[in-house]
């Protein structure tokens, strides 16, 4: 580990802060991607159902 990343006695607090922030800021965009996919899927399914009903 590079010396600059050695937080000594404050390691728990520094990495606890940066870790939680990283976790949230990586998870949020991923959740948003799956939300967009789900919305598109739902609309496509609705369109298919409408088409089937019309026939």
């Amino acid at each position, binding site marked *: 580990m590079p010396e600059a990343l050695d*937080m000594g006695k404050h390691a728990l*607090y520094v990495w*606890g802060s940066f870790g939680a922030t990283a976790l949230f800021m990586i998870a949020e965009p991923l959740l948003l991607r799956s939300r967009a996919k789900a*919305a598109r899927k739902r609309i496509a399914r609705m369109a298919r159902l409408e088409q089937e009903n019309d026939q």
Partner: protein
Amino acid sequence: MSSRLINWFKFSSPATFYPLAHKIWLVATIIAVVLIAIGLYMSFFVAPTDYKQGEGYRIIFVHVPASWMSMFIYVVMACWAALGLVFNTRLSAMMAQALAPTGAMFAFLSLWTGAFWGKPMWGTWWVWDARITSELILLFLYLGYMALRSSIDDPRRGDRASAILLIVGVVNIPIIYYSVKWWNTLHQGSTIKLNEESSMDDTMLLAMLIMTLGFWAYSIATAMSRVRSVILERERSSTWVKQMIAEER
């Protein structure tokens, strides 16, 4: 002048804004990734160890940007809410809706990183002082806004009711900001003052500002990404959405 006004109103239509939001998302994502990478490098490899707080002070590089964003996003949401009430534009409410989870996340991270900073420096994870309590109220305002909006079945009514909550809640923002001045708090005073020179080392200050700009770009990116989903969900019965999805498949 009048042609400019027409241009702005053109983008208040979800159908016109939808493709634009994608472009803004792309640019904001690139800026966020670059700035946060530089900011993180500076936070650990460039900024010196603090003479008083040792390595523990480095929490400032996420704590301050997260706290600023939690307050800033709230004000932006309240502005969108006010615009929505005045002009009755659907997109304004959608923008407020899209910003809320990111704002709540930053309010939570502000409290979380604050607790992780407080423990080694003050000897306690939590204290009911004015700064920390008013930030907690901000988190509750975000959660209250989201709960109120989603509890009303008619989305347009939900928009209006929650817009009023947002606007009333703005009173909390100056309370958070000035709390360290108005009351005797355990929380330290402002690191950056509007009318005075900063008390920080230059590289520390620069790292913090770069992280803040990175968080700012991140917030824009997530808001754009979320507003696109919100538009799809709320406009799912409109012809343009159906057509667009059909063309994609």
